[in-house]
């Protein structure tokens, strides 16, 4: 077993210290050492985006970052997106637009979308699609995910037509 290294970092606005082996990915340490299992493993080779985190303001696949590389750096994971005041607008929009089915890719999409909106608050639909093309979803066909992100960006999307007018739960209170 290789010798373990002490790492100091800031994760979700908290100072964190942990021991890790040099060969361990940030993804593995987040999930198995720090208990931050919201960051998901889909492929471990940078193709699916389920493990997206924001590292010093840059969107990365945490499976392609070694844990030792985050020394003195700042990481935001899905667990750090909401605030004590409540869900982030992206999280609310994913719920309101039913932008998830199984939900395993959802943390990656929300982290990726946040990184986009942090840099470009009003992206166009092609910009959203280009940015999110590093995140794979197998359930939704991306339609409702793209709509959720555009809704938070305040971009109206002229539609071909809506098959159903939105309705509300009108059950007894």
């Amino acid at each position: 077993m290789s010798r373990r290294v002490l790492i100091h970092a800031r994760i979700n606005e908290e100072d964190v210290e942990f021991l890790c082996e040099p060969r361990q990915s940030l993804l593995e340490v987040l999930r198995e050492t720090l208990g931050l299992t919201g960051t998901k493993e889909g492929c471990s080779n940078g193709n699916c985006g389920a493990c997206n985190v924001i590292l010093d303001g840059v969107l990365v696949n945490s499976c392609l970052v070694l844990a030792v590389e985050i020394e003195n750096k700042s990481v935001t994971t899905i667990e750090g997106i909401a605030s004590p005041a409540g869900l982030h607008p992206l999280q609310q929009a994913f719920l309101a637009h039913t932008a998830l089915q199984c939900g395993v890719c959802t943390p990656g999409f929300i982290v990726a979308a946040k990184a986009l909106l942090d840099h470009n608050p009003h992206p166009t639909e092609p910009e959203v699609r280009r940015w999110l093309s590093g995140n794979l979803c197998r359930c939704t066909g991306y339609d409702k995910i793209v709509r959720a992100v555009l809704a938070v960006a305040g971009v109206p999307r002229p539609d071909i037509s809506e098959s159903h007018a939105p309705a509300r739960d009108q059950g007894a209170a």
Partner: protein
Amino acid sequence: MSDKEYKVIGTRPLRQDGTDKVTGRALFGADIHLTGMLYGAVLRSPHAHARVLAVDTSAAEALPGVKAVVTAADLPTGVGGFTGTGEGLVNVRYEAENILAHTRVLYHGHAVAAVAATSPHIAEEALRSIRVSYEVLPPVLDVRRAMEPDAPVLLDELRTDEMGRQGDRPSNIASHIQHSRGDIEQGFKEATVIVEQEFTTATVHQGYIEPQTATALYSANNQVTMWCSTQGTFGVRDQVSEVLQIPVSRIRVIPMEIGGGFGGKNRVYLEPLAVLLSRKSGYRPVKMTMRRTEVLAATGPASGSYIRVKMGADRDGRITAVQALLAYEAGAFPGSSVGSGAGAMFAPYRIGNLLIDGYDVVVNKPQAAAYRAPGGTNAAFASETVIDELCEKLGMDPLAFRQLNGVQEGDRRPDGPVYGRIGYLETVAAARAHPHYSAPLPSPNHGRGVASSFWYNYGGKSSASASVNSDGTISLVIGSVDLSGTRTTIAMQLAETLGISVADVRSLVADTDSVGWTEGTYGSRTTFATGWAAYKLGESLKREFTQRAAQLWEVEPEKVRFADGVFSTDGEHLTLKELAARLDETGGAIMATATVEAEGYGPGFAVHIVDVEVDPETGKVQILRYTALQDVGRAVHPDYVEGQIQGGVAQGVGWALSEGYVYDEAGHLLNTTFLDYRIPTCLDLPMIETVLLEVPDPAHPYGVRGVGEAPIIAPPAAIANAIYRSVGVRMTTLPMSPPRILEAIWAQKPG
């Protein structure tokens, strides 16, 4: 199309598990961490076909940190019979051989040994120190080659089941089925136009984003607990019980959240290994998670296939005869989806004369598993493309052809059953009237195609229970794993029955000790069948509440009426909540249980319209516009129904254009990452418009029909038909990748 008014059904409440899933709190299979937990890993065959001469695990066992190693020698011998995985019965002996190869490896990636160690890295190191001697055998990868008499035989004892008769010599053809009706020779004589075509489709994968994962604890008192990401907890329990010969009463399966399944998470792979390793390591919990490479190399691909179709029609466009041959890859062990493919193939059409032959064929590929409408997509790619060509020769609008030949109530399906109330013709009419169908196409390289989908759907067995809380809310316990929001759609049906808000029903997906036996989440059955169980719970609870109200009012229960969530009798009324607050004074808690074996499930039909642009320089196909119209029975939660359709279309687009296993001649799978097994990204798709037609299933209390499977079926054929109208080439091979399209264009215009 339904005149019934509902208060909850048809609305769009937020899903109950949504907040946990957008905040990262939801615990999926691999998110579990237990005290003293070990990490398991699997050694897999580097060969497509070989005899296993010896497995030496001594070096692995000696490695510090390694706590257990298992091989096929650790599996019970002599297992047999069949057990249900969900989609189809599983031969237990073959399943055991798939979990760990006994004397022969049958595909690249076939499991040979497994280890458990204190870290995943040590487990990986241990795998590298296991020595396996192989005698490499010639593989057979092509389904037609595998059917030839001189092909290498995979399973020495396999004899062809020839429509019930047993063959007399070893063969890779596990079974031959046939559907036949009328007189096809006469039918083809009556045809003015005949089209005959051959098709091949690649082996594809379900492509769920969450890899297979399983955690097991074998306790010193011989109790087994498993934490699984599975479509069916009871399926896992029953398969592990059969393969390891442990009574079901000693196995408890706890469902974790599941990150996609699409048919691929019914069968067990890791679960029995985790149990064996846990026992052998001295009763420590063992977590096993596949890497993506293993998921693609060793879990449920969908059958690749070879299909031949001949179809004739008279000058008015009426189908006179159909003949088809379907040969589907089963992978290493029998059990492809040819049966459901052959039955579904021409199901949208009235056909008097037909002959369909289906062959289930073993090849040196991973054992095929169900994939969303198993077998239907391959078959429809062939049949719906031939129909398009037939329409072209007849000079007939493809949707007019479908209106002329389309099935309705009373017509007979190719595989026998007579249709009840179905909505196919309504769907075709809606497609023909849709603005997309008549919208102008801007450039010569743009083309529009249509195709139809049929899927059987399913009902099956579900259990549920409910208890009433003193604040009038209901705790609903179900055995159906939630892949897409079914906690909510089932709760909605209970809320509708009780006349309360869905916010007052909380669903819990329970483990196998806490709810009755329930089939897995497959076959588009969950909202239909478990929703039906929820309706029955609601009726039971109403009867209980009626008793309580009668007791309070000192009247006969028959004098108590119920409407809109309010119980009343002359001059008295109590809401369900008010009654719930008085349970303590009327005899205590109210609970109900319900089990269903849901019959009367109705099939779903869809028509898809797609516009593509083909770049004649590169062969690249871009989807410009997509409209999917489907009879959904009753859209319990329209957002989820739309999502099911959009997701199914996306998978169909991937199957059509980019997905497919690539093997070298030795049978090595070459594309085992998402970089080169390419599922659609959001750049590959436009917004997907859905049109929900509601022709309620009269058998179901709320008219529900299954929705999830039909949407994957039409896309490859619709896209092939659109490609033809764009660049004039008929594509007969999936995927319709840029090189294949370029080759077809070049072949059409030499030089």
